């Protein structure tokens, strides 16, 4: 099979989906192929932009956009330096798409939210879905942490104990926990979320919570309130209780990231993007510094795809965008060079504050997101690189993974949209 398209996007993670949404909006014929789903479905669902101060990594950053401007001056190799020109408009675009699909993302007056995790720690993030956007914890006049008997990996007492220790709550703020029952069995986050779509089950939960509610309390729950982005579970629960409810960030698989992924997929399909998941790109033909054809396989069958512009949104090692063997790493489709340096790839501590070098590996690009070699020369002219495939950022430490994906995906989509006939 041969396929032709204006813009081919390889990868269905956040950066690929953003690129698809933007290129399609500009009237291009867009095709998105991916081996599997992206990391966004494993993420908290929040869009991290920049977490901590450059000079003092223990201080939460109050103004991520300003901090990124400073970052670009001191570290011009950081992916943000390539997308700074569109950073704000990309965030606006992202929020508009979310809004249009009835799944709004909220910002915290331009600063970082400080949102509780299931462990009771607080993590900074820039944009949060409405169901997670819990304003200032200092202002809260009571907290009730609600867990479900059926769900493993969420322990209200742990959350409460650590939240108390963190010192963000007012000293006299009551902090209680409660275990409710959603009907028995042992459930995964997805199965529980499905069960909660049933209003009868929600009513039963409401009955169990009501006697424990103190005036003014907010409720913290695991991220299981609704299967899909258009679900009404969180809203209904809050209305029936007469108290605000929030989902906290939890380990994957957590629903908010999955909802964002579903919503964006739904959005791009609705905009005419041809989406093919379960199709692996194995290689490409390049002549005169242009990619003429991409070679893919779907269910064992070869497919050739030609496109004016190819956007490489294949992520990092996790999804196979980068591959490695001892001492050597490379990009898997175009064999673009990946600098590995001479140091060890990983730090001794898994949770090292310095971060792991392998997270910083990736493709070097110019300001048009085209891959470049050591001398800055463009390697392939009609290919652009986005997201976790870009070299130079350390997202788990810097808290910028989804932010880089949004901005670079948007920019690639925009540039692809400007390519003439």
């Amino acid at each position, binding site marked *: 099979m041969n396929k032709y398209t204006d813009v081919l996007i390889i990868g269905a993670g956040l950066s690929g989906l953003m690129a698809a949404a933007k290129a399609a909006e500009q009237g291009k014929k867009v095709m998105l192929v991916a081996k*599997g789903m992206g990391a966004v479905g494993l993420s908290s669902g929040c869009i991290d932009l920049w977490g901590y101060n450059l000079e003092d990594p223990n201080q939460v950053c109050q103004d991520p956009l300003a901090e990124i401007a400073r970052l670009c001056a001191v570290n011009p190799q950081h992916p943000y330096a390539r997308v700074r020109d569109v950073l704000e408009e990309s965030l606006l675009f992202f929020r508009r798409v979310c809004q249009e699909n009835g799944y709004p993302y909220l910002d915290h007056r331009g600063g970082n939210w400080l949102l509780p995790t299931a462990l009771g720690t607080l993590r900074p993030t820039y944009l949060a879905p409405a169901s997670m956007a819990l304003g200032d914890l200092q202002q809260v006049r009571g907290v009730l942490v609600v867990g479900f008997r059926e769900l493993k990996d969420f322990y209200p007492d742990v959350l409460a104990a650590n939240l108390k220790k963190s010192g963000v709550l007012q000293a006299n703020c009551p902090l209680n926990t409660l275990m409710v029952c959603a009907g028995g069995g*042992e459930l995964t*986050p997805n199965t529980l979320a*499905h069960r909660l779509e049933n209003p009868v089950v929600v009513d039963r939960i409401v009955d169990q919570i009501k006697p424990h509610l103190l005036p003014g309390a907010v409720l913290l729950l695991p991220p299981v309130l609704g299967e899909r982005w258009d679900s009404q579970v969180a809203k209904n629960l809050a209305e029936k209780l007469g108290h605000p409810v929030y989902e906290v960030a939890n380990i994957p698989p957590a629903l908010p990231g999955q909802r964002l992924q579903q919503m964006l997929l739904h959005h791009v399909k609705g905009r005419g993007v*041809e989406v093919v998941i379960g199709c692996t790109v194995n290689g490409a033909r390049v002549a005169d510094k242009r990619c003429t054809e991409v070679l893919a396989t*779907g269910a064992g*069958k070869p497919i050739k795809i030609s496109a004016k512009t190819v956007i490489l949104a294949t992520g990092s090692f996790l999804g196979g965008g980068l591959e490695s063997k001892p001492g050597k790493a490379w990009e898997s489709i175009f064999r673009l060079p990946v600098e590995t340096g001479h140091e060890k790839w990983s730090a001794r501590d898994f949770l090292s504050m310095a971060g792991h070098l392998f997270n910083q590996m990736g493709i070097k690009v110019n300001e048009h997101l085209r891959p470049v070699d050591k001398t800055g020369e463009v390697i392939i002219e009609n290919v652009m690189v986005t997201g976790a495939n870009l070299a130079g950022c350390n997202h788990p430490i810097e808290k910028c993974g989804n932010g880089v994906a949004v901005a670079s995906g948007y920019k690639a989509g925009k540039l692809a949209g400007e390519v003439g006939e």
Partner: protein
Amino acid sequence: MSSDYRLALDNCIKCSICVSHCPVARVTDQFAGPKQNGPDLERFRLEEPAAVHPSVGYCTNCKGCDVVCPSGVAVSAMNCRARGEYVSMHGAPLRDKILARVDRMGRAARLAPSLVNRLAGLRPLRLLAEKMLGISAAMIMPRYAQKTFLELYKPQNVGDTGRKVLYYPGCYVNYNAPEVGLALAEVLAHNNIRVEVEQFDCCGLPLIANGLLDTARDQAKKNLAKLQGYINRGYDIVTTCPSCHLTLRQEYRELFQLNTDPLHEKMLDVFEYLSVLLQQGKLVTRFEELPLQVGYHRPCHLKAAGCGVPSREILQLIPGLRVADLDAGCCGLAGTYGFKKEKYAISQAIGRNVFNAVKELGVRQAISECGMCQLQIHHLTGVAVYHPLQVLAQACGHGKWLAK
């Protein structure tokens, strides 16, 4: 990618993406899920084949897990083998043996299709079948056609384009929905291409899904040999059923290690075939206006074929036609799955999203390539459901292909 690699356990990074996309694991806690039944337990099965979780019978073989896995693990193939192992140890219930032989049921129904249809609709009989066999009384049965496709098909006189096309209709079209095969012949005749047909064995998917792998393997070998014969004589092979298509091309290779490479270039979904014609500028794009809005449901096995939605490009050429993607995931029927008493409720719960999407879009007609999806969507929503080919044949101008 070789099937060894796809089966390799160590590729699994335990991300649980497959679990969060499994339509069954989403709605019931009776199923241990793709990761556990797949790569997790496969590790033990390598040593001890009996280490099969009985809940593996709850997998619908929709292949959603394979599609979403970022590491390319063939989770569903592991599940299929495990189920085969389970069935060979514990035997299959009579009900499963009956349901798995859609070809035999079709042949039996040939004797008196109207009578069979009438009996299949009788409530007391349905209740009896539920009690005795475990076939859900609530699910509607597919209706048998008065004549099979092979009986009805008459080669049309068309100009010679030098193209040779063999059609693999599959059991459902042959026994239940011959109009789809006739629509195919109509559309190809519109392009001056004559269709050849022949009696094939069932592709074997219902057998595979019910764990009866040995019989399926025998049929696979016979089918492949026959298809190879046509390929050798310069034929392209077209299919209209995504499940037959995927089974012939992928399952034969992944489950039975048969060489299906020759099929990759030569066997196409009929809309892929038409797309090739379009690309070569050889598709006759003279279509009548069809002022219609339809909802499109993408069958899981079409998704799993990794070829996108081939019908989309062609249907876009029909003036007046508006196709809205339902984008609602699996319909839940999964071939024989939803007919089983203990699984009916699960299948309906999965299909709920399809129901919601049809309601939300307010469409009165829907299209889908898979006959079983068509049945389920009709059962869930009451709307008329067609194969996209029927819409295309209608636009080609001859006959009433959308009458139901």
